[in-house]
């Protein structure tokens, strides 16, 4: 265990390596660039690490796929327009149950937007691509949590074989703070999917008939529902007795936590996994409150996810939306 003073992006690199990450395919894009450059630096000093800068994010994603087919824990990092390009390889990983690991640093969108911050890539990361969104998405709300959850991202991807993401943002990526760096107790094993001399595999992602595809999808959906119980995670602060509960995720939740500490009757429900979403627990707390306020730096992407889980309750439901803006106590206070 070591205490280090790092930026969110630097934390990702340390965590990835602690989790067994050996290969990174990257293309620079703000605010994720330091993940790429830091890993490149480390790879020059450490023979066991390999860094490849590709010509764009699409090739980075497909390179990751190639490497993990060969049994290596490979990952990539991107955000914004790069996240869009990444959906082509992510869809392939989703279809073929490949342990794709991606670190996403959200920035203002759509299009080039800002290079700074937002929570506007929730929908894209959870269900971009032309599939059903069978992906696991972790939303850290502190730099320490970035360390913990990056390790979890690798473990979850390799254990359950669904594309798994750490959904960070530009503020956390660039912020600097004290972080505890430790060796994880558990890191998942790998196995190669292609190139095992003991058996031949012919793998495809194209089917001739609707029924063939539906069968594969049904199996994958069943698997995903099954693992949801193990993986769905959340945190609460003062939810049990509060009349008002704020629902927020990521660094917006961190801002709300400060606000809740100063208010008597305001609690916070914070999903740690956006997908699978902690449905039943969210519903349980929401039912008990008199009023819930959904806070996000987007125009409703998180709220849409939440409403899915809360269907049927009659608690007052308010939305506080600040697309591409930070969350500040003074402004939120007016609503509370």
């Amino acid at each position, binding site marked *: 265990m070591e205490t280090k003073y790092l930026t969110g992006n630097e934390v990702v690199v340390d965590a990835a390596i602690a989790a067994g990450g050996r290969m990174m395919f990257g293309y620079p894009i703000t605010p994720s660039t330091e993940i790429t450059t830091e890993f490149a630096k480390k790879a020059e000093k450490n023979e066991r690490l390999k860094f490849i800068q590709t010509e764009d994010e699409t090739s980075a994603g497909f390179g990751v796929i190639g490497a993990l087919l060969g049994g290596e824990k490979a990952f990539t990092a991107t955000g914004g327009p790069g996240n869009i390009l990444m959906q082509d390889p992510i869809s392939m990983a989703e279809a073929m149950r490949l342990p794709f690991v991606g670190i996403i640093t959200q920035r203002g969108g759509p299009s080039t937007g800002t290079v700074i911050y937002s929570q506007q890539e929730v929908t894209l990361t959870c269900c971009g691509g032309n599939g059903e969104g069978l992906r696991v998405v972790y939303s850290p709300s502190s730099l320490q949590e970035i360390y913990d959850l990056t390790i979890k991202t690798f473990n979850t991807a390799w254990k359950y074989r669904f594309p798994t993401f750490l959904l960070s943002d530009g503020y956390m990526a660039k912020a600097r703070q004290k972080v505890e760096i430790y060796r994880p107790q558990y890191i998942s094993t790998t196995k190669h999917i292609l190139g095992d001399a003991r058996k031949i595999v012919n793998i495809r992602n*194209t089917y*001739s008939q609707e029924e063939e595809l539906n069968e594969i999808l049904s199996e994958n959906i069943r698997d995903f529902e099954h693992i949801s119980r193990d993986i769905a995670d959340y945190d609460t602060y003062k939810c049990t007795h509060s009349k008002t509960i704020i629902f927020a995720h990521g660094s917006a939740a961190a801002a709300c936590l400060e606000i809740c500490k100063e208010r008597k009757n305001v609690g916070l429900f914070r999903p740690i996994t956006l997908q699978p979403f902690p449905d039943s627990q969210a519903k349980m707390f929401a039912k008990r409150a008199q009023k819930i306020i959904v806070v996000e730096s987007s125009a409703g992407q998180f709220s849409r996810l939440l409403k899915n889980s809360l269907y049927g309750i009659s608690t007052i439901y308010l939305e506080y939306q600040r697309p591409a803006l930070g969350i500040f106590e003074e402004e939120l206070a007016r609503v509370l």
Partner: protein
Amino acid sequence: MNNLKVLLSGEGGQGVQAIGQILNEAATKNGFESIYLPNFGVEQRGGVSLAYVQISRSPLTYPKFKIADLLIVLCPRSILRVKNYYNGRTKILNLIGFEEKLKEHELSYRTFNMLALGIISEFLPLEKEIIIETLVKKFQAKKILPELVSQNKKAFLVGRVMGMRLPSRTHSLDYKGDTKNKRDKITFEDDKKHWQINPGHCKSCGICVYRCPSKALSFNPKIGGVYGMPTSTCDIKRCIGCGLCERVCPEGAIEVKKKK
């Protein structure tokens, strides 16, 4: 009349879609509502081809259906493909092997789908003249030679007569034959060389016939290949055993050996 659901199935290349399109257009000309949907897999040629045709007096909105009222099967591979698309009430026309009947009437094997159309039309409430008009127009639009257009028309009429004579009860889809195109290999040899073809792998592309330097190869309409079309045969006297046909056959259907 309720919505009549017709499902056609055959090998890609048997002309299943042409039948579907003609029925669709003829039904419309006949004053019915009709909707047609093609369905095939990724291959351009060789996958099982399905055509969905619905004929109704009331407006139709959805192009696809699950259980057919009338199911037509043109090749053995379709049987597996359509197993979930019919029930006890479906009328089944099993036309596997009906290509043979074309020879009796000196019709080209390429008119098989029109023969099938003729048979099918006997079970549909469409006027014969309208179907003929539609099929002629379709073939003329494709710029097909006039003799072939009239062959197609003749095949249709022959089919219609056959259709009248078919028993009205449903056909069975028990096919005892092999659906995987396994056929015996055919060998020609003399004391210098040995030439063999596996007709079950021959797709009648004609490359071997074209490339043979001694013009020893030709098409034999009596032995059908993967799609029932003529396969290659060898005049061993002309063959020089060079093996070029073996090298250029895309399916590896030919084997040539020189003897010592």
